[in-house]
Each structure stands twice: as structure tokens, then as C-alpha cells.
């Protein structure tokens, strides 16, 4: 990359694209684990109960909060893109993207308060 290659990228929408990509990857990594746990429910109730006890640990709850954030930010950011690409153009996309990020953080925070 040339001198200051990142400098021109420092704008909200570039970060929105980055967050969207990373949150998508994060969710893709999580999904198989999620299905694995679901499989436990069908195959081995005792191990599932063990997993639930493990999942009650605060550190795991913190991880779940992160997942809620990833899910919310990917969902809201995705909706924004769908609106941009399928309906008449609206300005202020940087503000909308920031709002999506803020709302996702709020949702994750509410989740954290409820589970702790």
C-alpha cells in the first residue's frame, strides 16, 4: 500500500463496510457451534445441562453480549444496504450507519444487563 493508504479510508462508511464484513465472519464462525449445541439437545440432555452451567459463567455471558452485538450490527447494517440498493437513494448514509452501530451497542448492553 502506498503512503497513508489508510488515511483516505478513514470515513464512517468504510468502517461500516469493515464492521459488516467482520461481523459476518464472526457470525459464520459462531453458527456451527450454535448448531452443535442444538444437536446436544437432541442427542445428550445431560451434556446439554452441563453446557448450560458453563454458559452461565459471566465470561460466557460477556461473549454472548458480543454475539448479540455482532448479530444486531450485521442485521441493521444489512438492512441499510438493502434500502440503499433497492429504493430511491437517500443521503446521510454515514449517519444512518453510525446509528445502526449505536443501536446495536445499545441492544447488546440491554442484553448484558438482563442476563447479569
Amino acid at each position, binding site marked *: 500500500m*502506498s*503512503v*497513508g*493508504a*489508510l*488515511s*483516505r*479510508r478513514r*470515513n464512517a*462508511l*468504510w468502517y461500516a*463496510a469493515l464492521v459488516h464484513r467482520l461481523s459476518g465472519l464472526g457470525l459464520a464462525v459462531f453458527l456451527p457451534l450454535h448448531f452443535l449445541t442444538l444437536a446436544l439437545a437432541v442427542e445428550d440432555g445431560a451434556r446439554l445441562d452441563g453446557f448450560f452451567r458453563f454458559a452461565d459463567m459471566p465470561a460466557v455471558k460477556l461473549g454472548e453480549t458480543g454475539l448479540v452485538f455482532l448479530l444486531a450490527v450485521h442485521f441493521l447494517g444489512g438492512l441499510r*444496504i438493502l434500502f*440503499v*440498493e*433497492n429504493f430511491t*437513494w437517500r443521503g446521510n*448514509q454515514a449517519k444512518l450507519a453510525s446509528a445502526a452501530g449505536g443501536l446495536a451497542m445499545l441492544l447488546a448492553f440491554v442484553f448484558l444487563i438482563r442476563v447479569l
Partner: protein
Amino acid sequence: MTPSGKPDLSVSIWRGGADGAYRTYSVPSRDSQTVLDVVTYVQRHLDPTLSYRFACRVGMCGSCAMTVNGRPRWTCRTHVSRVAKGDKLTVGPLENLPVVKDLATDMRPFFEKWQDAKGVFEPSKTRDDAIEPIRPDTRQRQLADAGVECINCGVCYAACDTVKWNTDYLGPAALNRAWTLANDVRDAGQTERLQAVASGGGCHACHSHQSCQEHCPQTLNPTASIAGLKRLTALAYLRGEIEA
């Protein structure tokens, strides 16, 4: 030190081809100096072998775009005072295009993609037909007008990460051009154009980053134009007019 009392600018300029390097020059600072003025000073007074391009110097021809302190910009309309970091300026060739020498890039891929996107008007009438009046207040004319002031500077092409990742990608300027023609009711090449821009490196490769819009010196919004093409091509596909 210049008569104005300002310290000289320390200007790093890319020299050589793709494997070149930055070389630093000291250029007197002046009021209302543009980045193009600085580059011209270096060539006229310090090193006549420096290669760069410009023509109009007033933001019309689109030939002077370079990377200035990491951002693609039209240099003839970029004041040093707005972009210099301290007294430092770094000027390189545009990204995403092969470097010919110094600040001159090979614009051929950029213009070839313009052709690939069928960015050429296809007449539907002959010279013997009456001139068709187009009302400026029709929706289609307004959509075309919104994108028509492109000066082919390549700034958006250099700013687009999708261009960097996907060498087949037609890029914002060519697609923006295709969109203005797609809204030209006099054009007879619509189906072929939609087929061309729906292809692998076409409009659907765009991630709607809006870096193109962010950097376009003409304040055009290629992202919106490309979104329009995404809708038009999807509809054309559903109607069976174009193939996937």
C-alpha cells in the same frame, strides 16, 4: 524561506515506475498555491525529467488526478493549504492503475472498462429525423443529469477498494456513465448495456462503500448510479430480457 515569510514546502514525489521511490524536493510556499502548481514548480525549476499530466488547470479535463497525502485528488483544484500536513506534501500516482513513470499512470484500463460498460451513446435516430425534444423535468432526464458531469479523472477508480480486489470490476466511473445512458430515452442500446453491466465485474460487484462518492471532485454519487443499475438489471432479468 519565501518572500511571504513562509517556510518552504517539503514535497515527496514518486519517481520511476512501479518499483520507483519517493524523492523529496524543497518548493517555495506561495499563497493560493495548488498541488499542481507545486508539481509544475519541481518540473520547471528542479528536475525537468519529472513526468505528470495536466491540461486545463481549471477542473474540467480530468487529467491531473494524483494521490496527495494518501488521497486521490484533482491536483489543479486542490489548494496546498487545505491538504499539507505541516509543510509536508506527498504526491504519488493514482492507485489501481499501472504507473507509466513518476506521476503519470496508464489510464487505458480505466477507459477500456468505460467501453466494456457500453458507455457509448447508441443513436436511435438518423440525421434525417427531427431532433427529439427532451424535457429537463422528466424523471429520467433528472436521473441522467445527476451523473452526467463526470470529467473522467479516475479519482473514484483509485479510491474504490473493489477495483483493487477485483481486476475485472468495471469501476464507479464506467458504471455511472452506463447509468446516465440507461436513463437516456434516445438511446437504442439498452439491453446490451444492461447485459454488459450485469456481467461478472459489473454493478453487482459493488459493495456500496461510497468511497467513490466521498472522493469524486465533481460531487457525483456513483454509488447511487450503481444501485440504480442493480435495480434495472434485476428487473430486466426477471422480465427475461437479459441472462444471468
